[in-house]
């Protein structure tokens, strides 16, 4: 055990885990986070707190994670390289660890062009692979990137993202390997709509033996409407939405169909060797997560050890 988080414990015990995404608000309003936390509690094993997702200003992921922890939820802190250089990153991560956060997802981050401040100067002093390597070194060797020794390293269970759908399967599998070598212990993938391509990618991952070295959580997201399906296909970078999914949404035109598609995909993903869990990204539709988890037959979630009442 590295960080001893609930997420790490369940993955190492071979349980099929569920993580869910929680987007902080664009206001100094803790009640929004509290409401989402109350809604989601008990329906996933850990909760990703996004770091100004799609480059839109939101409450910071670390601050939101504190509110989550106070509500009894385990956060996966997302950290991008878009807004902080190596000094800011290390400083924030020391703080996050000191506040008791144990899971960290290391991302390069979206380009500011996609967000609400497209004229911002992008930082990208490091990329996600370098960020992973830096945090692993801080944790395992108790050294900053500069080489300076630190008395207490941040004990994070280290995660990374991977997109099986961007470019060839070969390059996406090799990039997974590169992130693993740099320090990633778990992965959360881009949203899977194209199960066929995901399956082929997982085969390449297994052929390289990578599924035995890190835990791979497949990303899923319910579609709300045919319009959303089309929007995602056309406007979200690296998103692969097959035409048959769009056709299914068009035909039924209902949220229920979107949920059903999500459930079908989860079922198929559970059968793929090497998939250690699912990561549900119900973007600004968090209230649907309990229903999906329940209907997917993934309830009850094992009670987190740290929050169990003493017997």
């Amino acid at each position, binding site marked *: 055990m590295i960080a001893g988080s609930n997420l790490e414990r369940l993955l190492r015990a071979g349980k099929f885990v569920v993580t869910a995404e929680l987007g902080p608000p664009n206001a100094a309003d803790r009640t929004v986070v509290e409401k989402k936390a109350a809604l989601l509690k008990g329906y996933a094993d850990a909760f990703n707190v996004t770091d100004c997702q799609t480059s839109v200003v939101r409450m910071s992921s670390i601050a939101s994670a504190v509110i989550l922890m106070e509500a009894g939820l385990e956060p996966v802190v997302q950290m991008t390289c878009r807004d902080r250089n*190596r000094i800011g990153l290390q400083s924030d991560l020391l703080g996050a660890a000191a506040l008791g956060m144990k899971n960290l997802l290391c991302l*390069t*981050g*979206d*380009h500011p*062009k996609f967000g609400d401040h497209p004229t911002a100067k*992008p930082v*990208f*002093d*490091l*990329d*996600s*692979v*370098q960020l992973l*390597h*830096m945090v692993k070194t801080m944790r395992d060797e108790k050294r900053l*990137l500069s080489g300076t020794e630190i008395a207490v390293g941040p004990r994070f269970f280290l995660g990374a*993202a*991977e*997109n099986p*759908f*961007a*470019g*060839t399967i070969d*390059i996406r599998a*090799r*990039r997974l*390997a*590169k992130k693993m*070598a*740099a320090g990633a212990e778990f992965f959360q993938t*881009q949203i899977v709509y194209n199960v066929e391509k995901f399956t082929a990618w997982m085969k390449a991952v297994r052929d390289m033996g990578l599924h035995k070295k890190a835990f791979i959580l497949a990303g899923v997201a319910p579609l709300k409407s045919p319009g959303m399906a089309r929007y995602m296909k056309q406007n979200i*970078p*690296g998103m692969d939405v097959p035409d048959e999914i769009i056709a299914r949404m068009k035909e039924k035109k209902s949220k229920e169909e979107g949920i059903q598609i999500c459930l079908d995909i989860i079922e198929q993903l559970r059968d793929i060797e090497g998939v250690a869990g699912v990561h549900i990204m119900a973007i600004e539709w968090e209230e649907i997560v309990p229903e999906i988890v329940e209907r997917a037959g993934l309830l009850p979630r094992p009670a987190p050890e740290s929050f169990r009442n003493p017997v």
Partner: protein
Amino acid sequence: MIVAKPKSLEYIKKRIKNHKKIAVVGCGGCVTVRPVGGEKQVAELASVLRIWAKKEGLNLEIEEDTALRQCEPEFIDELSDKMKGCDAAISLACGVGAQCLAERYSDVKVSPGVDAVFMGATIEPGLYWERCVGCGDCIIGETGGYCPVSRCAKSLLNGPCGGSQGGKCEVDPNTPCVWEQIYKRSEESGDRDAIDKFVPPKDWSIRPSRLTLEHVRVKTEGRAT
């Protein structure tokens, strides 16, 4: 070469309207090749400004001259006849040339007439593409001859990111993803390290604006010996 694009006429007019005598100064270097700041553009801009000044009833005298290169002290010296008596000047050179001009003629208020946008190559006539940011630590030997610092929107050193689709950059669908290009080249050449080898964080202390004169001199001498 340094690629620049003209500033708006409105901007230039605003910079000169309260002056008596100005010079429009071109450069025979990069901005002549990518024609925004050579002799011809100097003549054009000066004519347009003269017509405008007359229309506005301004008492404005406009000189024109072009240095062989505005970034070389001896060529800037040669401008002294035309610069004499000027209280303002519009430089059609890149920021380097414009600053050299401002430094040499410190009593003249120098404003830029163009915006230097990047160091690039000519792809086809009229189309220029950024190829270098002058980071001071070139790695294209390890990346198949492609520069990810200037050509990846996020300057990834361990790319590609998850946003490229159909070989194009997520930030601009007309721009090829440079990491896809690096990947293709590595497949052709068998140099798998270009993709698989971890590249550590870059040493940005080399730039920007940290290069001292001494530093450059040492490096130049080092190469010669």
